[in-house]
């Protein structure tokens, strides 16, 4: 009887999901209620989790709860600690979910809500969550080894090196693009800038409190920090109305970019307890709290989606970034669907905390589904805006025109009605001077969130909600920036240590300063170019980041597929093999188009050539001619970087194919590095 009800229950979940999905896909009316998206998403996740992940866990990975995990065998009370599954889930989710799933869907909404939503759901259930779970499983069976080490042990030295270089370069691009998102959110916004600036001393105060005033009292210190952060949002509004103070925090993009660069350097050199660790606590609470609040607000409000299901921009002419639906929607949304970066977390801290192999499915697969849900909410927040407003906020001035009137005429010409008065009214309601051409996704997400949260929790507080959303995004973007710069520094020190051992010492001050400066200069360069680029920079950097992130995912899936083949599970290796083939297809196509397309909004070389011809012909306005040489150089550099990423990807995949061929030919391959079975004493 119980079995019957269980079957009936799951059948209704499947039917409800199918109906909701069909409605989402077929609806072509005036608007669609966001509840349909939520329902479709939740049902897809439930079915994927209950059936697909359970099948993989039992039949492909053969998860064995009687086998002792590294946390149990190597328990040292420090990094290897058997931990409650919900606590590990929380740690893992907080580590994988950053600003990526918020920014990607916001940008991809230019194709309409449907393509991005489908990719987020299908990509997560069949790709991203599988990658995370399998990587977590492989690492748990190997004492928590990193992706690079596993690639080296299982496939060959080439894969390991590629994973390491890939990670380093992704970090540089990622930090640059995130820095750009923050700069664009702070540009000429005294309220936003002062609030973001206030997070630095607040984090330091929390750091001192935890370290010296009341050592180890993490929750007390965090509570203090959260209260101060909320106060800083309110106080920012006061600054905004103060003539002298407002002027102090009102800046162009370039000085803001230089402050972010200087901040990044300071954060990498200062001790972690002072800035990085406390900021991370605050950003984690903010992230979890806001995501939860947004979910409640969407359920409560059930907002209508105003963006069409599919826009004409699937032909590649979109204002936010150039390029057709295939492959660019799959590149733009990496985090939320499949993100290679997760493989680094799933093969880092998390496997050392897992008490039982039985928890792997919930943590690896489950946490990715939750991140995917965050991406769906970001998609909803972007598409509840009137399309005209969405395009006015997100289109760079270089595409729609610098003057407000030009911009609204261009956008209204596409069929998305918007007026200057409407935009001015919205900007003043949000407490900003303008919302035109605020590229990067953060301002439009903040407007979307403010309108959702404002309706539920107080309409007159729109400006407060807007700046709360900006602060919320900025605080964990800056955490990623701090943490990424520091990781980049460690990796660089590790590499330089091979040349000169002294440089490899993480406590040797000249080396710390040198390597930090090099890493900051790396992302600082891309950030600088992004700021001076009249097309906004995001349209160049975000696809580059997407390609790099998908490359890392392909490396992780290659390692997983290779291990499955080697361990005589050839017939089931498609669970990672098929996502791998799909990633190879989209990443290679996207890279090919970014390098060789003759469309100057897509192809890097074409853009460089076009700009140099215009420069030589003297048709550029003086302010554009001044930066043209740097933009030309950058386009060429980006083209070579893209080629490098895709070459790296193919090297790893071919190395895996070579190993598999040897296995099929019964030639010797590297033995499995799996640790032998030890019975768990916990079951």
């Amino acid at each position: 009887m119980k079995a019957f009800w269980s079957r009936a229950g799951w059948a209704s979940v499947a039917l409800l999901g199918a109906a909701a999905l069909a409605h989402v896909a077929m609806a072509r009316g005036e608007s669609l209620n966001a509840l349909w998206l939520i329902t479709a998403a939740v049902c897809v996740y439930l079915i994927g989790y209950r059936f697909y992940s359970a099948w993989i866990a039992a039949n492909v990975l053969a998860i064995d709860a009687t086998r002792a995990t590294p946390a149990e065998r190597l328990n040292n009370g420090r990094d290897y600690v058997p931990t409650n599954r919900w606590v590990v889930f929380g740690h893992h989710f907080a580590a994988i979910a950053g600003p990526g799933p918020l920014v990607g869907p916001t940008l991809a909404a230019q194709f309409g809500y449907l393509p991005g939503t489908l990719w987020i759901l299908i990509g997560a259930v069949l790709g991203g969550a599988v990658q995370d779970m399998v990587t977590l499983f492989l690492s748990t069976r190997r004492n928590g080894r990193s992706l690079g080490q596993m690639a080296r042990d299982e496939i060959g030295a080439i894969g390991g090196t590629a994973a390491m270089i890939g990670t380093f370069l992704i970090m540089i691009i990622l930090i640059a693009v995130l820095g750009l998102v923050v700069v664009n959110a702070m540009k000429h916004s005294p309220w936003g800038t002062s609030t973001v600036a206030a997070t630095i001393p607040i984090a330091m105060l929390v750091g001192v409190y935890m370290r010296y005033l009341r050592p180890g009292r993490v929750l007390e210190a965090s509570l203090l920090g959260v209260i101060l952060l909320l106060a800083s949002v309110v106080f920012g509004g006061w600054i905004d109305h103060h003539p002298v103070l407002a002027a102090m925090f009102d800046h162009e993009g370039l000085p803001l970019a230089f402050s972010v660069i200087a901040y990044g350097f300071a954060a990498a050199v200062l001790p972690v307890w002072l800035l990085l660790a406390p900021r991370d606590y605050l950003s984690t609470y903010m992230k979890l709290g806001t995501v939860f609040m947004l979910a409640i607000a969407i359920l409560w409000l059930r907002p209508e989606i105003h963006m069409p299901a599919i826009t004409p921009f699937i032909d590649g002419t979109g204002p936010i970034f150039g390029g057709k639906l295939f492959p660019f929607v799959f590149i733009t949304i990496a985090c939320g669907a499949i993100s290679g970066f997760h493989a680094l977390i799933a093969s880092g801290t998390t496997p050392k905390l897992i008490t039982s192999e039985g928890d792997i499915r919930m943590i690896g697969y489950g946490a990715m589904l939750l991140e995917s849900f965050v991406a769906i909410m970001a998609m909803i927040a972007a598409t509840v805006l009137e399309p005209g407003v969405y395009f006015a906020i997100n289109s760079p001035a270089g595409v729609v025109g610098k003057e407000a009137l030009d911009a609204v005429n261009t956008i209204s010409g596409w069929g998305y009605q918007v007026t200057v008065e409407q935009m001015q009214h919205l900007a003043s309601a949000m407490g900003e001077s303008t919302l035109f051409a605020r590229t990067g996704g953060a301002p439009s997400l903040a407007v979307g969130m403010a309108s959702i949260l404002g309706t539920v929790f107080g309409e007159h507080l729109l400006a407060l909600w807007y700046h709360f959303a900006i602060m919320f995004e900025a605080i964990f973007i800056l955490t990623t920036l701090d943490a990424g710069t520091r990781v980049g520094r460690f990796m660089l020190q590790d590499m330089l240590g091979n040349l000169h051992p002294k440089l490899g010492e993480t406590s040797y001050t000249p080396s710390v300063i040198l390597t930090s400066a090099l890493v900051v200069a790396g992302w600082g360069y891309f950030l600088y170019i992004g700021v001076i680029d009249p097309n906004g920079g995001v349209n160049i950097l975000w696809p580059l980041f997407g390609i790099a992130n998908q490359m890392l995912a392909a490396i992780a899936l290659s390692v997983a597929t290779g291990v499955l083949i080697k361990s005589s599970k050839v017939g089931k290796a498609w669970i990672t093999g098929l996502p791998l083939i799909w990633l190879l297809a989209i990443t290679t196509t996207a890279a090919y188009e970014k390098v060789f397309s003759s469309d100057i909004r897509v192809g890097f070389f074409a853009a460089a050539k076009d700009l140099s011809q215009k420069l030589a012909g003297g048709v550029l306005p003086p302010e554009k001619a001044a930066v043209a040489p740097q933009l030309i150089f950058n386009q060429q550099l980006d083209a070579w970087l893209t080629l490098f990423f895709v070459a790296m990807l193919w090297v790893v995949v071919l190395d895996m194919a070579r190993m598999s061929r040897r296995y099929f030919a019964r030639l010797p391959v590297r033995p499995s590095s799996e640790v032998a079975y030890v019975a768990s004493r916990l079951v």
Partner: protein
Amino acid sequence: MRTYWLKQVWQRVRQLSGDDAYERYLAHYAGTHAGQPEAHAPLSRAEFFKQWQDQKWTGIKRCC
């Protein structure tokens, strides 16, 4: 019943944030090192927290 669940949640929150890390360290210490001849005295709360925090931040801890 309700207080039991509240306690459970509070315990998870403390564990997730690391608020109880020192207590867990002391428990681990008592379980493994105490009574052994070469054992050092357990670290003080401040000393333990320093090491815990530094170690927590080595390696890739945050993603995109």
